[in-house]
């Protein structure tokens, strides 16, 4: 597919500055989208970002490096690397010369600083390239004056004339600068000429990661910011009634402050170890929370009551099933944490935040300060999986710092992160499909879920565009659901509806949000339909998928994964498909459900069936960094395995029983597939789709389908092991466990 010149011509800006600073001018360039083109969530977020995208700027420094402050959060997904690649491509500089940092909260960006919905590369792909291409053009013009020639080439950051005389872009940065802001047309590199984009690159932050130099929020050395933790209630969102021994705890070794806050009792000490001891020493009387007395069973009954009707069954044969998906935690390995320094007239916050503008507004309101007096620094995050869309720790840190008048370095204990942190809401999915002869006539899905909290900025995007979106008068969640779900199969008349109930839980968008559950339910029903209709699960899917791109990824995993190969009893393959974020994906999984595997001993771990092999094919349209894309799919596969087999939260008496990584069974080495192959399909588009979350749904679904085929029973409750409590729950009072002392004997 060749890209026409017209599609590559944009308007950029040269900004008035002492060194060369260029910016994208998309808001006034031809890329103004027609609202009727809005068909999915990515479009909506990109559209919302358009009017301010021009404020994204690239700076060429006198030392020959190029700086860019990315208005997104890097939480492990590799966007600083892919962003550096875009700049290196258009500016013709080596990747090592590009310095990508994370921008502080910039309220003028309005919607253009929300990291979510796998939208980053999709939304920033063109603006960043426009700015970089314009910088290259300005440098070449400056070099022409300098070298007295227009026959110049820019390679590896050096501009050379035909005689071989060269000048480094650093030496030209001042000369290429402008004293006034100008609007300038610029042409982007054609896809055929790419030398950086589309080629695998290792991550630019890898050296810092493997040497321990990478700084996360808790590694920052902010003067006076001492360790701080919070003694939390025994049930979800309980509040403090009274504290019996404030003075006694204030006198404990290392403790500097103890103060009651909205969410519990905060303690500040010289070390976090002393915070743990102080939290455990507090004697607090608690008031009830927002989920008192609730359990998995009571929530399941709430969901049943909230389920929207499927209508009358068709007169033709039908397949019908209901699936249950229990609560899951989106805790990252880095727990909720933030540094706050609140003074009488200003505040400064450091945290990994995917919605820093909303965080800044909310924190300012809580502190009673004008937003302009609150500075929010976005720090690189130790994972997110949706968790860092919220800023629970930043809000708490600000409150504590204001109340005690000192800077704090606030961190949640792991037990807090499990029990009071955000969760993927419990949900059910009911599906009915009818068929006749060789045709599927209808497919209807009713997804019913505990409410997902979208109050992190995505809600504001939807509100602002609500009147323009083709979804009518729907709530945030239903809008999100409709925009993120597609029907990929030709299944006749289809409908999919979401209904939500119960806002008493701390929920959020966990990686891939609704899709893993919705797709898992659908793909299991597809397997059942195929069986009823006497068809092979792969061939049946292939025949019903709507387009070539979709069929290509499915065919690829079937071919590479040797679909249909003969396997021993108790083991099987499963295959599944998922489309989202303008991308398509397919997974082929092999699972071993034989007793000797299921019951293999692992101390304090859940073994269960083992996924022995995964073959995954992905087509994101245009893969900026195939190596990074493979990494994202690998992570998504680990998530999908956990969602299908092992990881969930058990709700009982108004609290979650899990309080440790040896309670919440995210995939571990002993659950990891021994064989893994990820295939990045050749580019099928001029623009990249989203990728960070894409692979979870197909992975979870393929594992479930493989389990169903290995055991001869369709699983209907997820994760598979939820019914067996595989650990002894830790006490809720005190809310966090004691620090062990046996480290010398127990590695």
């Amino acid at each position, binding site marked *: 597919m060749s890209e026409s010149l017209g599609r590559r011509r944009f308007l950029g800006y040269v900004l008035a500055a002492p060194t060369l600073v260029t910016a994208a001018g998309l808001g006034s360039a031809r890329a103004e989208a027609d609202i009727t083109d809005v068909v999915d969530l990515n479009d909506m977020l990109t559209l919302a970002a358009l009017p301010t995208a021009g404020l994204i700027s690239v700076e060429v420094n006198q030392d020959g490096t190029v700086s860019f402050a990315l208005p997104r959060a890097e*939480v*492990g*997904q590799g966007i600083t690397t892919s962003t550096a690649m875009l700049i290196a491509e258009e500016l013709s500089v080596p990747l090592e010369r590009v310095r990508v940092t994370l921008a502080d909260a910039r309220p003028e960006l309005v919607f253009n600083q929300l990291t979510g919905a796998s939208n980053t590369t999709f939304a920033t792909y063109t603006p960043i390239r426009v700015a970089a291409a314009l910088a290259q053009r300005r440098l070449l013009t400056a070099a022409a004056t300098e070298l007295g020639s227009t026959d110049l080439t820019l390679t590896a950051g050096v501009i050379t004339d035909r005689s071989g005389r060269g000048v480094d872009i650093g030496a030209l940065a001042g000369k290429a600068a402008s004293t006034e802001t100008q609007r300038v047309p610029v042409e982007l590199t054609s896809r055929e000429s790419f030398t950086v984009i589309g080629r695998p690159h*290792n*991550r630019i932050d*890898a050296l810092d*990661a*493997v*040497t*321990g*130099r*990478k700084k*996360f929020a*808790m*590694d920052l*050395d902010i003067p006076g910011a001492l360790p701080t933790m919070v003694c939390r209630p025994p049930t979800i969102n309980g509040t403090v009634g009274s504290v019996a021994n404030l003075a006694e705890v204030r006198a404990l*070794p290392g403790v500097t402050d103890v103060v009651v806050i909205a969410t519990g009792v905060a303690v500040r000490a*010289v*070390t*976090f*170890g*002393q915070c743990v001891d102080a939290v455990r020493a507090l004697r607090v009387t608690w008031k009830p929370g927002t989920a008192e007395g609730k359990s998995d069973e009571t929530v399941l009954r709430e969901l049943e009551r909230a389920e929207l009707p499927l209508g009358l069954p068709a007169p033709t044969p039908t397949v019908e099933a209901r699936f249950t998906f229990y609560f899951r935690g989106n805790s*990252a*390995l*880095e*727990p909720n944490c933030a540094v706050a320094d609140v003074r009488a007239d200003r505040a400064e916050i450091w945290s990994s935040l995917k919605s820093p503008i909303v965080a800044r507004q909310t924190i300012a309101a809580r502190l009673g300060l004008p937003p302009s007096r609150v500075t929010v620094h976005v720090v690189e995050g*130790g*994972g997110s*999986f949706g968790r860092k869309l919220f800023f629970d720790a930043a809000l708490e840190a600000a409150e504590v710092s204001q109340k005690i008048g000192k800077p704090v370095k606030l*961190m949640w204990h*792991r037990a807090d992160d499990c029990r009071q942190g955000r969760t993927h809401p419990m949900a059910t999915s009911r599906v009915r499909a009818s068929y006749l002869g060789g045709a599927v006539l209808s497919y209807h899905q009713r997804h019913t879920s505990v409410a997902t909290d979208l109050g992190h900025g995505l809600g504001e995007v939807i509100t602002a565009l609500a009147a323009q979106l083709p979804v009518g008068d729907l709530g945030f969640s239903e809008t999100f659901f409709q925009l993120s779900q597609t029907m990929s199969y030709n299944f006749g008349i289809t409908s999919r509806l979401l209904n939500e109930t119960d806002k008493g839980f701390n929920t959020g968008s966990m990686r891939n949000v609704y899709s893993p559950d919705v797709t898992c339910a659908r793909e299991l029903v597809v397997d059942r339909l195929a069986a009823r209709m006497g068809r092979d699960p792969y061939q049946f899917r292939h025949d019903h998928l709507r387009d070539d791109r979709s069929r290509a990824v499915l065919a690829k995993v079937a071919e590479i994964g040797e679909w249909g190969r003969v396997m021993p009893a108790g083991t099987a393959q499963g295959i599944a498909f998922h489309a989202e974020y303008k991308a398509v994906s397919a997974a082929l999984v092999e699972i071993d459900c034989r007793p000797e595997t299921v019951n293999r001993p*692992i101390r*304090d771990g859940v073994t269960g069936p083992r996924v022995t092999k995964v073959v995954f094919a992905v087509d994101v349209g245009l893969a900026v960094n195939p*190596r990074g894309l493979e*990494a994202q799919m*690998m*992570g*998504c*596969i*680990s998530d999908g395995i956990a969602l299908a087999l092992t990881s969930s939260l058990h709700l009982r008496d108004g609290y979650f029983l899990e309080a*440790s*990584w040896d309670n919440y069974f*995210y*995939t*571990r*080495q*002993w659950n*990891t*597939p021994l064989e*893994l192959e990820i295939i990045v399909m050749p580019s099928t588009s001029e623009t990249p789709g989203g990728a960070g979350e894409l692979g979870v749904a197909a992975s979870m679904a393929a594992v479930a389908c493989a389990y169903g085929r290995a055991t001869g029973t369709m699983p209907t409750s997820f994760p598979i092991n939820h019914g067996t409590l595989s650990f002894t729950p830790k006490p809720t009072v005190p809310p*966090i*466990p004691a*620090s*062990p*002392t*046996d*480290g*010398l004997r*127990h*590695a």
Partner: protein
Amino acid sequence: MPEHTFRVNGEQVTVDVADDVRLLWVLRDLLGITGPKYGCGINVCKACTSHLNGEAVNPCAIPVSDLRPTDEVTTIEGLPATVGRDVDTDLHPMQQAWLNHDVAQCGYCQPGQIMAAVALVHRIVAEGREITDADLDGLRNICRCGTYFRIREAIKAGMAQSP
């Protein structure tokens, strides 16, 4: 307050802190050595894995008073020196293998993963055998980004390159 003396990354250190403060907080909060990470505080997630006299340990579960003046604590920051390399400019072969396999995503668990991997390989080399899937399955370090497969690949490559 009691004084505690031990060695960290080749240097003798003395800290003035209560006996029962765990080594992790002495390293992070008092000495400013932030490579070992907090992920659970109860010796489960292994994000703080470091070496004590060459063996993998979890500092979150070691009271500082358990350390003797001759005890040598090695964190990720000091790993290259254990194979005679400069900690500011060089890498341990396992760190290089991690780079070659582009393992890290968020990177939070990776210092602990690498320290656990080096200790595992030491043990296997001492036993004079090849690394097995069961050895790799036995690693307990959590990676919530799910980089396990590349970790396995990197450990096998790092073992081949290790002195």
